[in-house]
């Protein structure tokens, strides 16, 4: 009996030792703790913080961390961190590369009380966790004026800015200029495609040259997040109308199967699917192999975004000229949405205020300021991503032909903000509905079943 008691005591001592070990940081170091309200998270009045914000040289060494969910850009960010640290001697930035699953890694960091000071996250993730985030304000961050206002909409909640957008991504039907030039017997002009019928004629011309006309990469993120996402985008109206439609889906009053916007996009979807290069096995979906087919002229057009430059740029024997076509939604030449492309600011820099000290938060702001305003950072970012940046002082030129195409649409005012607001589409929208879209593309269900499946998804979110 005594022996058992002794064992129990030992186990209790071990548990106490473990719990003490797991206690982590001193809460006094952190401005916010689990009892803090969101308001208290966003306030900062410490002298130390003021010093960092004012840019005065403090002797205190500050260590911050930067978590990015952009894959394949580790060299870029490590280079930028090195450059930043050269001019900010007292700040050390620990780089945390993207994990296999961006959310899992982020959540793990927070669970171990090691939330990254700066994180590059999707707007919906920042929105859903805004209570942990520090809001940017023009008093502390006068450089906020350098960011295009439109690009901030997906990161602004209740009038507070919680994220600074990274690159601007445009998407639609990418086209291979050489293939289309051969198809039309001259120089192809994207402005000639103003209707769905015109697109069909173009597809026929491409096919007559022995090249596949179009291509879907049969993966849930492309079909769910990007293609189906457009059904909830600008063609439906302004942000209020988009939110209103999503709400009507949740409460079951919307009739998606007979919805004109849904059917407009799905008619074009059927057209692309009919001419799909991957028609024989539509869900085999490999973005690298599809990029190779597109870049080497085996297919004329591809539903993707300008980020595809990352895949195309290194391909041997790739063509040199590319562009982006809008997804036409009707046969009406005067329909504005037949000529515009959606642009999205898919990721933004947010600053944690729940597990980082005030001085770390201010150092984090300096790092974000550097990423958004520094000429070298902008130049390197554009070169690596091949996409435009939403910063007014940016003079760096985009070398990517796809990025140039997006920039051209932006210059002409022929774009609309894909998101409009961060909380329009839930975080699992792409996964659940992407699966339904794949099912439809594979011909395993009809459009009515697809609409019913999507409607069921929304009702479960009510």
């Amino acid at each position: 009996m005594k022996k058992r008691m002794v064992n129990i005591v030992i186990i209790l001592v071990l548990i106490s030792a473990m719990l003490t070990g797991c206690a982590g940081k001193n809460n006094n170091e952190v401005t916010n703790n689990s009892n803090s309200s969101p308001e208290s998270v966003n306030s900062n009045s410490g002298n130390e913080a003021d010093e960092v914000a004012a840019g005065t040289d403090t002797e205190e060494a500050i260590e911050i961390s930067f978590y990015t969910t952009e894959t394949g850009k580790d060299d870029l960010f490590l280079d930028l961190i090195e450059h930043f640290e050269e001019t900010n001697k007292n700040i050390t930035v620990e780089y945390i590369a993207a994990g296999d699953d961006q959310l899992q890694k982020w959540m793990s960091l927070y669970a171990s009380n090691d939330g990254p000071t700066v994180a590059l996250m999707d707007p919906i993730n920042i929105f859903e966790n805004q209570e942990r985030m520090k809001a940017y304000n023009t008093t502390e961050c006068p450089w906020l004026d350098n960011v295009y206002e439109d690009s901030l909409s997906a990161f602004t909640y209740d009038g507070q800015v919680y994220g600074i957008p990274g690159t601007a991504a445009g998407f639609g039907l990418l086209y291979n200029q050489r293939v289309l030039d051969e198809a039309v017997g001259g120089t192809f002009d994207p402005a000639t495609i103003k209707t769905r019928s015109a697109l069909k004629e173009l597809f026929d011309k491409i096919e007559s040259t022995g090249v596949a006309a179009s291509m879907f990469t049969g993966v849930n993120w492309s079909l769910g997040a990007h293609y189906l996402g457009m059904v909830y985008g600008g063609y439906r109206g302004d942000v209020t109308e988009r939110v209103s439609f999503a709400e009507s889906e949740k409460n079951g009053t919307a009739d998606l199967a007979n919805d004109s916007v849904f059917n407009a996009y799905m008619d074009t979807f059927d057209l692309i699917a009919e001419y799909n290069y991957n028609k024989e096995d539509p869900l085999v979906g490999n973005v690298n192999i599809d990029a190779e087919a597109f870049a080497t002229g085996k297919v004329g057009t591809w539903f993707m975004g300008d980020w595809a430059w990352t895949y195309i740029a290194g391909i041997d024997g790739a063509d040199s000229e590319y562009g982006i076509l809008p997804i036409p939604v009707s046969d009406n030449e005067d329909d504005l949405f037949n000529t515009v492309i959606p642009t999205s600011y898919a990721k933004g820099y947010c600053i944690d205020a729940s597990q980082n000290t005030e001085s770390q938060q201010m150092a984090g702001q300096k790092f974000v300021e550097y990423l958004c305003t520094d000429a070298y950072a902008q130049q390197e970012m554009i070169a690596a991503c091949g996409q435009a940046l939403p910063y007014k002082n940016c003079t760096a030129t985009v070398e990517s032909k796809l990025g140039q195409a997006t920039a051209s649409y932006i210059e002409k005012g022929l774009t609309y903000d894909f998101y409009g607001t961060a909380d329009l589409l839930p975080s699992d929208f792409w996964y659940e509905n992407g699966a339904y879209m794949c099912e439809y593309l594979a011909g395993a269900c009809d459009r009515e079943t697809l609409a019913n499946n999507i409607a069921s998804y929304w009702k479960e979110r009510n």
Partner: protein
Amino acid sequence: MKYFSNNKEASVKHNRIKKNLNSILLFLLFAGPVVFIWFSVVIIPFLYGIGITFTDWNGLSINVNFIGVSNYIEVFTDSVFFGAFLKTVLYVIFSVIISNLTGFLLALAVTSGIKGQGLFRTGFFTPNIIGGIILGYIWNFIFSYALTGLGKSLGIDFISTSWLTDPHKALAALIIVTAWQMSGYLMVIYIAGLSSVPKELLEAASIDGASRWAVVKKVKIPLIRNSITICVFLSIIRTFMSFDVNLSLTAGGPYKSTELIAYKIYQTAFTKMDFGVGQAQAIVLFGIVTVISLAQVYFTRKGRE
């Protein structure tokens, strides 16, 4: 006299304390680190996980509300979760049977005295030391491109389109890869069992004129029952918890047709950001696996008696 008696009592007491202290020190020396690790990585996270099932935590939020057993009610009324469970049961049955049969046959082959059996053992075991994620990507390429290329060039319809884009074939592909990975591991356990079968018995059987199949059926299998119990137990546990191959080979596709239960839990917790429900699903899975595993061990032992 009383003085001596007290002195003796004190001495006995002192010895007992010394003995206890020695026991404690021995315990701390040998079992302490293991108990510490076990508590750190198993017991505490498990209890913490149970606590989460009664909350609406999304995995990140600061404010957490206690919501009672709502998450469990959601789990038991979720037809998608039930569907994932049925798919998992199907996957487990086939994977366990195929991997154990293959493992046993391989073990028989490499203990039969064939030339280069050491090399074969290493070769068959190798898939098990390749991580599930890597293995999934390798087989993804094989099913999607290598086999389809072969099928198209030879005109074999059956493999000219990817197995991973067909809901039924994709589950079969998952079973094949799992069996391929696990059979080498099970083979090692079966080899250990077969090596312990007394040679005299095998010689006696052959002198009595027993055929090879009769020796396997009447001598080897009854004598390696312990190995069979261990292998079936391990394969049930591993296949029920299967996640990495599911993620990298099919990612639940095509259109969620191969979404096994562990993958479903992952999606609920990390994509839907519904950590409370995801954790409740994990606890339910834990219960199911515990019951099935204990039942399997019980019936196997009962059969031996």
